């Protein structure tokens, strides 16, 4: 089954590549001022790998962006999951926090960028803060929903067995909510990448978003595509890693669903 799925996926990617090549290089329907051809993409990629672009090599840009995403995501997860679990467990906490959430949630994370730059300048701290804000919400909401959706008898069974408070959180509440928590983590990770690129577009001196910004000013479609593809690949790789962690942590659940 997996082999067949992978085959279909590869075929799709290959056809998109061929279509791209046909449209730009062979027929010229799409001019190179609008979208780069595979050859132009190759030239841009070669340039950034060998001589660098926007002040640094591709690896340096990518590592910097990755670092910010991981830090913002980590801060969001470490703060968001406990808050979500707590809100799910104690209705009073939910009653306190929810009104604030209702007002803050509709504000797009990107709207925090001006304030973040005002507070923390154009450096990394402002970007980490914005990523944190963006990634925080899905982590909280899903951890909260995860606790609320636990079957009542499971909680009652643990109480009947005399489970003390801290063990209850660690061995019952957290694992029972884990499938939802991981859904939240995936959304948080996605939000982290989206927000990072946007934050780097606005003000940065290094990073994948900065490549995009510079390449736009240089009217350099080939390099724009390099930046986009790099974001795509890193986003996919981090999501894949998260998926692996989920498979390991939720082995019991994956098997239970099959």
């Amino acid at each position, binding site marked *: 089954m997996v082999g067949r799925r992978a085959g279909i996926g590869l075929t799709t990617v290959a056809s998109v590549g061929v279509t791209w090549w046909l449209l730009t290089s062979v027929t010229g329907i799409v001019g190179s001022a609008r979208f780069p051809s595979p050859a132009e993409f190759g030239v841009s990629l070669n340039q950034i790998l060998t001589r660098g672009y926007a002040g640094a090599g591709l690896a340096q840009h990518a590592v910097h962006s990755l670092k910010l995403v991981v830090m913002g995501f980590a801060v969001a997860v470490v703060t968001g999951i406990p808050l979500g679990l707590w809100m799910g467990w104690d209705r009073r906490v939910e009653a306190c926090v929810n009104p604030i959430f209702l007002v803050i949630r509709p504000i797009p994370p990107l709207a925090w960028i001006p304030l973040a730059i005002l507070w923390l300048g154009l450096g990394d701290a402002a970007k980490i803060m914005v990523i944190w804000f963006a990634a925080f919400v899905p982590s909280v909401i899903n951890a909260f929903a995860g606790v609320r959706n636990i*079957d009542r*008898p*499971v909680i*009652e*069974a*643990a*109480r*009947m*067995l*005399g*489970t*003390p408070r801290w*063990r209850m959180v660690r*061995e*019952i509440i957290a*694992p*029972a909510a*884990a499938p939802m928590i991981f859904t939240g983590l995936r959304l948080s990770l996605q939000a982290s990448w989206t927000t990072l690129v946007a934050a780097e577009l606005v003000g940065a001196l290094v990073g994948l978003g900065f490549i995009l910004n510079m390449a736009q000013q240089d009217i350099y479609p080939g390099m724009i595509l390099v930046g986009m593809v790099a974001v795509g690949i890193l986003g996919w790789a981090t999501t894949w890693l998260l998926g692996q962690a989920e498979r390991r942590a939720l082995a*019991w*659940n994956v*098997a*239970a669903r099959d």
Partner: protein
Amino acid sequence: MGSIRFQGVNKVFGPASSGVKVLDDINLDIAEREFVAIVGPSGCGKTTCLRMVAGFEAPTSGIVSVSGRTVTEPGPDRAVVFQQFALFPWKTVRANIDLGLRNKNLPKDQRDDLIANALKLMNLESHAEAFPHQLSGGMQQRVAIARAYVLDPEVLLMDEPFGALDAQTRVVMQEELVRLARVNPRTVLFITHAVEEAVYLADRVAIMTRRPGRIKEILDVRTVRQSENWDRFNKIEDVMDLESFVHLRTHIWRSLREEKGAQGV
């Protein structure tokens, strides 16, 4: 081993003045090592009775006590077996049974001995390291029973424990429970809507009215079982053929049917 006492217990869901009254003046004494089954039409509040002994619900008025102590919260002295098993799917069978023992802060070697005994008692030895989803419903309920038994509770509370099982599995579990109850009698409060099950398992059967539930009648099954020597049979169908069994069953059926009639069903 403990006793259970309901003294003038009323239960109203919602506000005391405008809520739904589910239990009306329940008085019931369950002696040490006695097996009492409560039967009644659905929604009559029989499960609420059990949940109050477990400490999941508080009576609106009246007192529920176990061995003379008023129940205030859940605890391992009152082990519950739930209809939907309520196992922890992320824990192995062994870890499910172990949790209550760990909560009692027992040393590891003692826990291992107790778990080994419980696994043997419920014929689960070869499944100790399995996860619940790898087991059939009947096996999962064995785990839940083992998890309750291993605590050596004052009382055992069983809330329609075989209601989610298929007919053949249910019969096997009923026969095993009788075997357990005869070897090592415990104080059991057993909730069911299956009349045969109640007569087969219990020392006494309490029949409840429709909502608001009252105890309408309490039947002494043990006297009949002993005088007619039901225990000479191992199989439930042999007992169910006995005239004395049929007589009790029919009596309960009539009594319950009156309740359904009163409900207009």
